[in-house]
C-alpha cells in the first residue's frame, strides 16, 4: 500500500538528511586497505560503504580472451547480501551485470591499456552498505584503487548521482531520494580531460532539468576529484595507511 509520499524537501529547503540541495555527503577514503591487493581503498560516502581491490596487470586466463595490443579490464560491481534492507541473493543480478559493464566503460578511457598488451587488470567493487549512488561511488573508489596500485592512468574519474525530488534538483542522492524521487541520474567525469565517461538517467525530467542536473553533477564530481587528489597525495607523504576524513 503506497502511503502518503514522504516529504523529501522540507519547508526550509533541506533534505531528509538535513543537506542542502547541492551538498555532498561526507566522504572517507582509506587507501591501501587490503594488504595483498595491488591497490585498494575503503570508500565511504554518507552511509555507502564500498571496498575496491585492484589486481594487475597480470597474465590473462583463459588466454584466448587476451588482446594483442592492449590490456583488458575485468570489472565486477557486486552488492553484498547484507548491503541492503531486504537481503539480496549473492548471485549477480541483471542490474549488477549491467552496472559492471557501465563502470568498466567509464574506466576504460582512463587506463592506459596500450602499455600492457596481453595482460588483464582486475577491478573488484564490493558494495558492503548501499545508500544510493553506489555505481558512481564505486567508480570514484575504483579510480583511487587503480592509482593506489600504480596502474598508469591518463587521469582520474569521479562521479555522483543527481536526482529530482519534490520538483527540486539535488546532488548526491541518498537511498530514499533514489527510491521515491522522480529521477535518478548518475554521472562520472574526468576533470583533467573535461569529459563525461558515465551518464545514465532513469525517471522523468524536462530537458532543462537534465541540463541543470548534468552541470550540478559535474560540479559535484570536481569536488570529489579534489578529495581524491588530496587522499593520494597525503598517502605519499605518509607511507603507512592513513585514514583521510573529509567533509563537504
Amino acid at each position, binding site marked *: 500500500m503506497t502511503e502518503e509520499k514522504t516529504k523529501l524537501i522540507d519547508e526550509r529547503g533541506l533534505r531528509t538528511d538535513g543537506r542542502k540541495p547541492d551538498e555532498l555527503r561526507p566522504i572517507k577514503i582509506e587507501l591501501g586497505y587490503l594488504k595483498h591487493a595491488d591497490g585498494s581503498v575503503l570508500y565511504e560516502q554518507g552511509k555507502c560503504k564500498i571496498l575496491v581491490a585492484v589486481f594487475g596487470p597480470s597474465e590473462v586466463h583463459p588466454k584466448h580472451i587476451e*588482446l594483442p595490443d592492449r590490456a583488458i579490464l575485468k570489472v565486477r560491481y557486486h552488492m553484498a547480501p547484507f548491503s541492503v534492507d531486504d537481503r539480496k541473493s549473492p548471485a549477480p543480478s*541483471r542490474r549488477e*551485470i549491467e552496472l559492471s559493464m557501465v*563502470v568498466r566503460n567509464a574506466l*576504460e*578511457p582512463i587506463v592506459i591499456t596500450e602499455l600492457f598488451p596481453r595482460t588483464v587488470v582486475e577491478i573488484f567493487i564490493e558494495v558492503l552498505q548501499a545508500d544510493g549512488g553506489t555505481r558512481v561511488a564505486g567508480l570514484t573508489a575504483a579510480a583511487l584503487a587503480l592509482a593506489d596500485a600504480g596502474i598508469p592512468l591518463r587521469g582520474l574519474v569521479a562521479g555522483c548521482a543527481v536526482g529530482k525530488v519534490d520538483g527540486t534538483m539535488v546532488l548526491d542522492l541518498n537511498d530514499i531520494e533514489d527510491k521515491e524521487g522522480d529521477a535518478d541520474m548518475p554521472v562520472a567525469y574526468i576533470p583533467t580531460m573535461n569529459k563525461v565517461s558515465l551518464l545514465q538517467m532513469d525517471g522523468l525530467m524536462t*530537458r532543462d532539468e537534465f541540463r541543470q542536473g548534468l552541470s550540478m553533477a559535474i560540479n559535484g564530481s570536481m569536488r570529489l576529484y579534489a578529495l581524491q587528489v588530496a587522499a593520494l597525495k597525503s598517502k605519499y607523504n605518509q607511507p603507512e595507511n592513513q585514514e583521510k576524513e573529509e567533509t563537504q
Partner: protein
Amino acid sequence: MSVTRDRPVISKVLHQELMDLLARDKRMDGRALHEFRKIEVETGLLKKAEGSALVSVGGTKVLVGIKVGIGSPFPDTPNQGVLTVNAELLPLASPTFEAGPPDERSIALARYVDRSIRESKAIDLEALALQPRKIVQVVYIDVYVLDYSGNMTDTAVLAAVKALENTNLKRYTLEGDVPTFSGEFVPLALKDYPVSTTFGIIGEKSFLDPDLEEEHAAEGFISYTYTQEGNLCAVMKNDQGYLSHSQIFDMLDIGWEKAQEIGRAMNWRKD
C-alpha cells in the same frame, strides 16, 4: 564480471575515409549527419502473440513480441500490473553474438527499453491490476534482435512501442479470486509513445543512428528517449569512450527534433 571485448578490426583506410567524410559533414552511406536510415515497420505479424512489431532501421532488424499473462504484483507496487522486458541478441544476427544466457549487452538493452517505456508512463500499469495486491496482468516484452547493423537501441525501443500499440489485452472477469477470460479483447491503450535517438561521436562531430562501421569507429555513444511532450525518460551513455558536456547538450536538442520527426512519421503527433 564485465570483460573488455575486442573491437572488430576496422581497416585504417575505412577509418580514415569515415573521418574525412565527417569533417565535411558527410557519411559513408550518403546520409546527412543527423539523418536516420530508412525505417520500416510491420505490426501484428505474430499470431500467437498478443502484440508484435518488426522494425528495420537500415540493416538492423528487431522483432518484438508481447505476451500478456496473469500473475501477482511486486510487493512495493501492489496496485500495479507488472511490466517485464527481456532482450535476446540472437547469434544469427551478428558474428559477435553468441548463444547462451543473456550477456551484458542484451541486459543493458532490455533495461533501457524497460526504462523508456516505464518512466514515460506509456502503459497505465494501474489499469492492469485485476485485484489490487493479489492478481494483476503481466506484460512480457521480448525483444529479438534478428539482424545487427548498428543502433539496435533505437530500433528496439521503436519496435517495442509499435508492438504495444497493437497489443490486445484479454478482458477478465473475477469470480472470487479466480480470473476468467470473458472472450473479449480490448486494445492496450498507450498513454505516451517514447522515442529513442542514439548518436555516435568522433572528435567534435556527432552523427545520428550510427551504422555498423560507424559504431566500430566511434569514440562514444549516447541515447536519449523522449516522451511526446519532449521530456526525457531515459538517457544512456553507452559503450566505451567519453563525451564533453557541450556535445551532450547539442545532441539533446537535435535528438528532440528527430524524435518529433519519428513521432510524425508514426502518426503519434500532428504538428
